[in-house]
């Protein structure tokens, strides 16, 4: 009986969803409302209004700047949730590899991973700094930083990587995204402009472009560092041993 009810419910839901999808305007049609008003404006005047060659970055940081700022705050909330469940893990005691064993990788794979990670880090810096003019930006570059730390931890073991990004450093870096947004926003407010408009009043038009580029880069770097630190912290919290918990609780 219950199964029949479930099947009926799911079929009704599916029919409703398919009906709704059928009512949507055809994909990619140039007459769609989304292609009529806002997209042409972004495409035509985005580079000039937002100051970014990459229109996606312009929408993220400038047109929808508040949205991105709140998104960064949500990232902090997610990290707080992870720490509430898993514990922050100031110290690491016990096994050093992800599978719980103490057996090291071979020299060949370790050297290969070190080479690979150095290029990943280089790529992430490039993605963050070029994010306003090329595909990429703070989120992708920061995730690449986190990915580099994770890959090296997988191959080299926890003991070799953890002291490079210690707890005290990560605790500061985890808030740089919001800090960068507030610093850039507040500079604007203090000097008489609006919050997060990336402008300073009383500056010539040529200097204004430089000011805007500098502010955008500051925000990108802040987001990138923060995303990298958050990803690393979540990973290290996941790697924490049960033994380490017990030792900490006893102490």
């Amino acid at each position, binding site marked *: 009986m219950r199964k029949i009810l479930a099947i009926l419910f799911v079929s009704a839901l599916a029919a409703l969803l398919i009906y709704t999808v059928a009512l949507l305007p055809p994909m990619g049609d140039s007459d769609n409302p989304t292609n009529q008003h806002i997209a042409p404006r972004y495409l035509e005047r985005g580079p000039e209004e937002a100051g970014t060659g990459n229109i*996606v970055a312009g929408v993220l940081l400038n047109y929808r700047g508040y949205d991105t700022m709140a998104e960064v705050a949500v990232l902090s909330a997610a990290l707080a949730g992870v720490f509430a469940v898993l514990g922050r893990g100031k110290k690491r005691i016990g096994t050093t590899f*992800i599978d719980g064993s103490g057996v090291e990788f071979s020299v060949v794979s370790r050297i290969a991973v070190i080479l690979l990670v150095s290029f990943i880090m280089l790529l992430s810096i490039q993605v963050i700094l070029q994010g306003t003019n090329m595909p990429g930006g703070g989120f992708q570059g920061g*995730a690449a930083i986190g*990915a580099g730390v994770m*890959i090296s931890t*997988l191959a080299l073991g926890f003991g070799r990587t953890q002291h490079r990004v210690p707890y005290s450093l990560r605790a500061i870096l985890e808030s740089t995204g919001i800090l960068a947004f507030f610093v850039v926003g507040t500079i604007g407010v203090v000097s008489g402009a609006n919050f997060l408009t990336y402008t300073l009043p009383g500056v010539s038009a040529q200097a204004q472009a430089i000011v805007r580029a500098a502010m955008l880069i500051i925000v990108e770097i802040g987001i990138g560092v923060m995303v990298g630190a958050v990803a690393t912290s979540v990973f290290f919290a996941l790697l924490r041993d049960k033994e380490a918990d017990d030792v900490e609780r006893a102490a």
Partner: protein
Amino acid sequence: MLQPLNIVLLILLFVTALTACFHRNLLVAVIMLSAFSLVMGAMWVMLRAPDLALAEVVAVGVITTTFFIASVFRTQRREE
């Protein structure tokens, strides 16, 4: 719309997604999820969304996969 490369990528997406869902060995499933995100990244590039492609490959392909690997080793390797 349906170029040969597109069809190959779609088939690969289908296969990797199904394997990730139904394989009994959880480590294989996680690696298949990573492969899925790589193929998906190629799809995003073909759809002219390189920002999304970067995010997909880095966030899903590496970070989520590593989280899942850590979780698999903390719990058990096989599905019951």
